[in-house]
């Protein structure tokens, strides 16, 4: 490693030029790809107009990894793919091979490392998740733990393509939703359920009162005084436990072991294929935090997946399936209870009512 101290400080170099990391076959066929073929849930081939081929072998990763994990990948890449590899937008690893004969030995070595092969096609993709108790201060649940518990149970859905279509699961540990959970086939979302505690000293010293008040989506925060100094109070009946006040004002923590937990959402999607992108919708309003393996969360997700697998037509995403059979049947099949919490009463909620006599009887 070069000793850079003393030299002129260099800044704003920006990201490294990607050209330096492209496999030669990719460089030569950039923009010329003609079609692809999915050869197994763990590998596919892209064929160029020139006739060239590139094989991609996909491997699951927990995303939160050690330096040693990366070095393992590098060793494999050196051995089989000329050192070339990439990550996917959902944190999988892809080895890029120009030699078909390298695929099997690579896969064998991957198996030896106990890493999962799969993730291509109609699978449960790697779960996009966030920081949780590992690294974030607003987390209402852990991220990596729930994700691990889920993927252990859904392992075969990752390695074998058994589903009607792609299923994207995401986890976010608070309503900031750093994972794209608001548009996922299945989303698990950490939630608080108790209004923030007020720590008047912190509020007075560390918080800007007007922006704290403005941060509340439901106007639940009102100006107040504490020992004669400006502070805030909370209209408890209006609080939706979003935690946005805590983000702008550290004097209003929400974490509460007895009340924190997760909610489960279904039927969102991002792609424009067939149906327009759409938000995930509330399925289960609350499940308690139950570390280390959150069994009820795992069970609920499996319930959804099983129902989907049995009920959906080929090519139908979770949301498309539910729209076809109707939400009443979804609740019926899964056994989840429909409550008033499911009825949107927020800003644009009105637009979500059933303004029709189209009702399955």
């Amino acid at each position, binding site marked *: 490693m070069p000793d850079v101290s003393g030299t002129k400080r260099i800044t704003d170099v920006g990201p490294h030029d990607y050209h330096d*990391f492209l496999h030669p076959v990719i460089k030569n066929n950039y923009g010329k790809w003609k079609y692809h073929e999915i050869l197994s849930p763990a590998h596919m081939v892209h064929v160029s107009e020139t006739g060239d081929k590139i094989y991609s072998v996909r491997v699951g990763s927990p995303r939160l990894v050690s330096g040693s994990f990366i070095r393992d990948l590098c060793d494999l890449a050196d051995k089989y793919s000329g050192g*070339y590899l990439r990550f996917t937008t959902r944190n999988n690893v892809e080895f890029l091979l120009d030699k078909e004969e390298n695929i099997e030995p690579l896969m064998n070595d991957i198996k030896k490392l106990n890493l999962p092969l799969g993730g291509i096609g109609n699978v449960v993709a790697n779960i996009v998740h966030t920081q949780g108790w590992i690294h974030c201060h607003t987390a209402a649940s852990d991220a990596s733990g729930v994700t691990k518990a889920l993927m252990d149970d859904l392992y075969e859905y990752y390695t074998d393509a058994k589903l009607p279509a792609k299923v994207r699961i995401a986890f976010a540990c608070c309503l900031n939703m750093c994972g794209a959970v*608001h548009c996922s086939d299945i989303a698990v979302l950490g939630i608080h359920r108790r209004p923030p505690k007020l720590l008047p000293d912190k509020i007075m010293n560390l918080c800007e009162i007007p922006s704290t008040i403005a941060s509340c989506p439901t106007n639940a925060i009102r100006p107040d005084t504490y020992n004669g100094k400006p502070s805030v109070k909370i209209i408890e009946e209006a609080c939706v436990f979003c935690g946005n006040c805590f983000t702008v004002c550290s004097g209003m923590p929400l974490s509460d072991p007895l009340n924190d937990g997760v909610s489960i959402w279904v039927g969102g999607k991002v792609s424009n*294929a067939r149906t327009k*992108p759409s938000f995930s919708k509330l399925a289960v309003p609350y499940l308690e935090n139950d570390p280390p393996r959150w069994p009820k969360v795992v069970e609920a997700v499996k319930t959804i997946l099983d129902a989907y697998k049995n009920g959906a037509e080929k090519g139908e995403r979770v949301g498309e399936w539910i729209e076809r059979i109707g939400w009443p049947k979804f609740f019926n099949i899964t056994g989840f209870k429909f409550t008033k919490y499911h009825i949107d009463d927020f800003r644009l909620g009105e637009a979500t009512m059933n303004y029709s006599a189209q009702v399955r009887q």
Partner: protein
Amino acid sequence: MSKKHQTPLLDELKKGKWPSFVTEIERAAEKSEMTDDLLGQVEQSYKEKMGHWKHGGMVGVKGYGGGIVGRFSDLPEKYPGVKEFHTVRINQPSGFFYTSDILRKIVDVGDKHASSLYNFHGSTGDIQILGVKTSELETIFQQLVSFGFDLGGSGSALRTPSCCVGMARCEFANYDAMNMCYNITQAFQDEMHRPIFNYKFKFKFSGCGNDCTASIARADLSVIGTWKDNIRIDQDMVKEYAKKINLHKYVTGKCPTKCMSYDETGLKIDDSNCSKCMHCINVMPKALRPGVKGGVTILLGSKAPMVSGPRLSMVLVPFYDVAEDAKNGYQWFKDLIGKIWEFWDEYGVSRERVGELIQRVGIGNFLEAIGLEPLPEMVSSPRGNPFVLYEEYVEADGEKN
């Protein structure tokens, strides 16, 4: 190295087939002393069902206002290794492509100067080195720069743009998403490193409507590939597919605009009514390809739910001939972005994302300000209520008003 803390709960998460983050933390702990205390603190969180990080904390490197997320334990005495446990966000290369050489260089830095724990990658796209002490920040930064890597975004700034694999390995790409992502990121380095915005701003670039970066759900500015001409059809291959799948049910039957039909004479598409949803091409990639006149649709405003509810991006520019503009260094695009930021700067309030601002001031006014015409492509349907704010009225001659 022997374990400092008992972690019976976390140990449960070493079981099972999926690779375990707990195992990874333990492996990291072999390289870095501080990481052992992370296990301890997280175990305590598992026991108590509650996190143990303090609220925020500003840290950074000289001359930059972003790129580092400060993080401090609220149990520093008990877990001194995580007393300071910041994250360094490193701007990933376009398409997340690496060589083993460069990856080893990156983890050399993190293994030596931090916890040896990484996110490959963060949800925005960065490589993240976790567990960095304040004192190590400058060293890490300088070493990264020395081999051509820079910090990503954080705070009220441009955030690290990201893109799909695009033309590098995807036949569906309608424009060079990786190149555009790289060019735009380089062009706006200042906006990324020195937070002067009202709030964060994110770009994501996807090569086609499949939107493999989920740009439409989580980028203030989503750039999604599309095309202007006809879908390229290989009728022979269509026939091959027809032997395996019921095209009526699974292809033409699911076309959102019902612009396709199939019979003995082949597949017919009324391309003027095709909304470039990608469905038919997805199902029959050997038979169908997007047209050759590629470009992008530019959409604006998606974000997470705070404060006014989750948002998807909406159409701002139905078609932009990006290939043409690329010849010109994407100047038209950069000017457009400049105008958007100018408007946001002038009218936005603190912590207001651009999508929320537009909703507040009205899309009509926004378009006028940035010099774009209102177009029916921007709406799923025109207004259904009669409360129209007609801007002018006629006065009778000599009328006093």
